[in-house]
């Protein structure tokens, strides 16, 4: 039982780009149903960590388990079944620029569900409604603002009702009101659908609103992991300065 509530476990993860070590022995456990926030200075390796968990990059050393299975030693098709249960929102949105908004959201549905096109279109409308973008249905990504792109990408990420959602800086570059709405959406996803969320963010307000637990990465090392309350008590200089407690 104890093991089952850890949806992601990372052990001694070492990662590098062309010999430059970026992650240096990371140990992490992420629990089912929590909002787990990854913090750290710019260039601290947050995006890199995320890309390792979703299998886009291969580590030099260490193990990564998702849904209790080691993703590094598994076959492609096995990993694909895991990917179908996760959604990812990239730092820049990463919408397919040649497709209209609705087609972008429809991609995972067309490929991984057996729904017919008219039902898919209804699902797309529903997902776009969740992110309040029903009116953008047939626009091209180039016709959207930065914040709208992120919301479309979110609609695409939750298209298949994933069990884990990864977010790279959901609220960066958004105005405080939109950012707050996005946070509410994230909280909703967690409460209504029981999704586990792994979020990279710098926004203090956002962290305080949504985070169940945080990890703080500094120069590729995990210097704190726990709740915000625990962080307050831990008295780690870098973390205190990040939150303005120092």
């Amino acid at each position, binding site marked *: 039982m104890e093991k089952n509530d850890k949806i992601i476990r990372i052990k001694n993860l070492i990662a590098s780009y062309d010999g430059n070590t970026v992650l240096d022995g990371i140990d992490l456990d992420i629990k089912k149903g929590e909002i787990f926030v990854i913090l750290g200075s710019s260039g601290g390796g947050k995006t890199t960590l995320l890309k390792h968990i979703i*299998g*886009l990059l291969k580590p030099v050393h260490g193990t990564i388990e998702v849904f209790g299975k080691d993703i590094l030693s598994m076959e492609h098709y096995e990993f694909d079944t895991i*990917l*179908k249960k996760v959604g*990812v929102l990239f*730092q820049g949105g990463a919408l397919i620029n040649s497709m209209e908004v609705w087609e972008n959201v429809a*991609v995972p549905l067309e490929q*991984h569900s057996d729904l017919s096109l008219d039902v898919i279109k209804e699902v797309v409308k529903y997902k776009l409604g969740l992110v309040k973008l029903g009116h953008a249905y047939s626009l091209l990504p180039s016709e959207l603002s930065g914040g709208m792109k992120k919301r479309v*990408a979110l609609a*695409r990420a939750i298209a298949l009702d994933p069990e884990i959602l990864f977010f790279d800086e959901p609220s960066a570059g958004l105005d405080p009101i939109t950012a707050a709405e996005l946070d509410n959406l994230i909280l909703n996803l967690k409460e209504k659908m029981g999704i586990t969320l792994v979020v990279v963010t710098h926004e203090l307000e956002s962290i305080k609103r949504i985070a169940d637990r945080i990890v703080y990465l500094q120069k590729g090392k995990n210097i704190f992991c726990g709740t915000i309350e625990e962080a307050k008590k831990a008295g780690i200089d870098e973390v205190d300065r990040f939150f303005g407690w120092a």
Partner: protein
Amino acid sequence: MSDQSSKYRIVVDGSFTKFDIGNMKKKIENQKRGDSDIIIDLSGANKFDSLSVAFCSKLESDRSVRLIKSPELESEIADFNQTAGSDKAETPEPDFTEKLVLAFYGLFYHIRDFIILAADIFYFSFVSVISSKGRKKGSVYEQINLIGNNAVPIVFLLSFLIGLILSLQSAAQLRQFGANIFLVDLIVIAMITEMGPMITAVIVAGRSGSAIAAEISTMKITEELDALKVMALNPLKYVVAPKMLAMTLSLPALTIMANLVGIFGGFIIAVLYLDLSPNIFFDRAVDVMSLNFWGQSILKSVLFSWLIVIIGSHYGFRVKGGAEGVGKATTASVVASIFAVIMTDAFLSLIFYFEF
């Protein structure tokens, strides 16, 4: 102003900023030609910006100039150098042999990547023929339209002109020997085995090979490919396979058209310039056209179609950097695919010539 005749003094008071650098440089240059020592007196200057500080810092190391600094400048320069020099990434410049080794490795990996990619593309295109799962819906049809249909006018026009010109030049020679009828042999064989496949491939490499490289490289730098991967979609299957299938169908079809249109160009010259009767041209043409030539033509065009897609994708996936990288990838892919097309054509022609 000057205490000694061989010393030249430039005095600056108050502010010395980026707008004064040009003037100062000019004065120094002028004096250097005059062969006298230069003293720059900045002891009265008190307002600087980062550019003028950088300039002064550089002047310090110039032997022919003596710089008199105010305490402000002194500390500004120290600050500047500290910030500029802090966390500098020290990467020593590789020497010649190291560069050679690196270049060799680069080439090796380039070729290795190309072969792996080619194998993967063949595999996924084949899988994609059997099942359309993991392929964008309607994409093969869409690509046939883009690669094939849209290229019809340009291929039509150019192959007609090539046939016409080729025949015209040859007709002038053949006529001298009274060998008019052989124009038919010449144009039929030349178009079907050489010019048709090659011209079409070169046009399509320029139109669609470049488009493939541009699309894939853009998708890579905007993380669209990563987004596909995490949606459990294989970019090779989703993006490349439809192009591969469409190209494999379109290029031979375009080639057949180019062959016939080119021969039609020859027909016009034969009838109008060599006074061959249409019937004679037609009968002779049918005699000359063997299945063997058509086979060569189709075989070549199929190989060319694969080369164009694989080379375009290869450069697309290798892209580095931003918009400039896309430009480079596109150019490189067109140059490489035209080169590969012509090399392959020459190679195959030699084989066919001696074997059949």
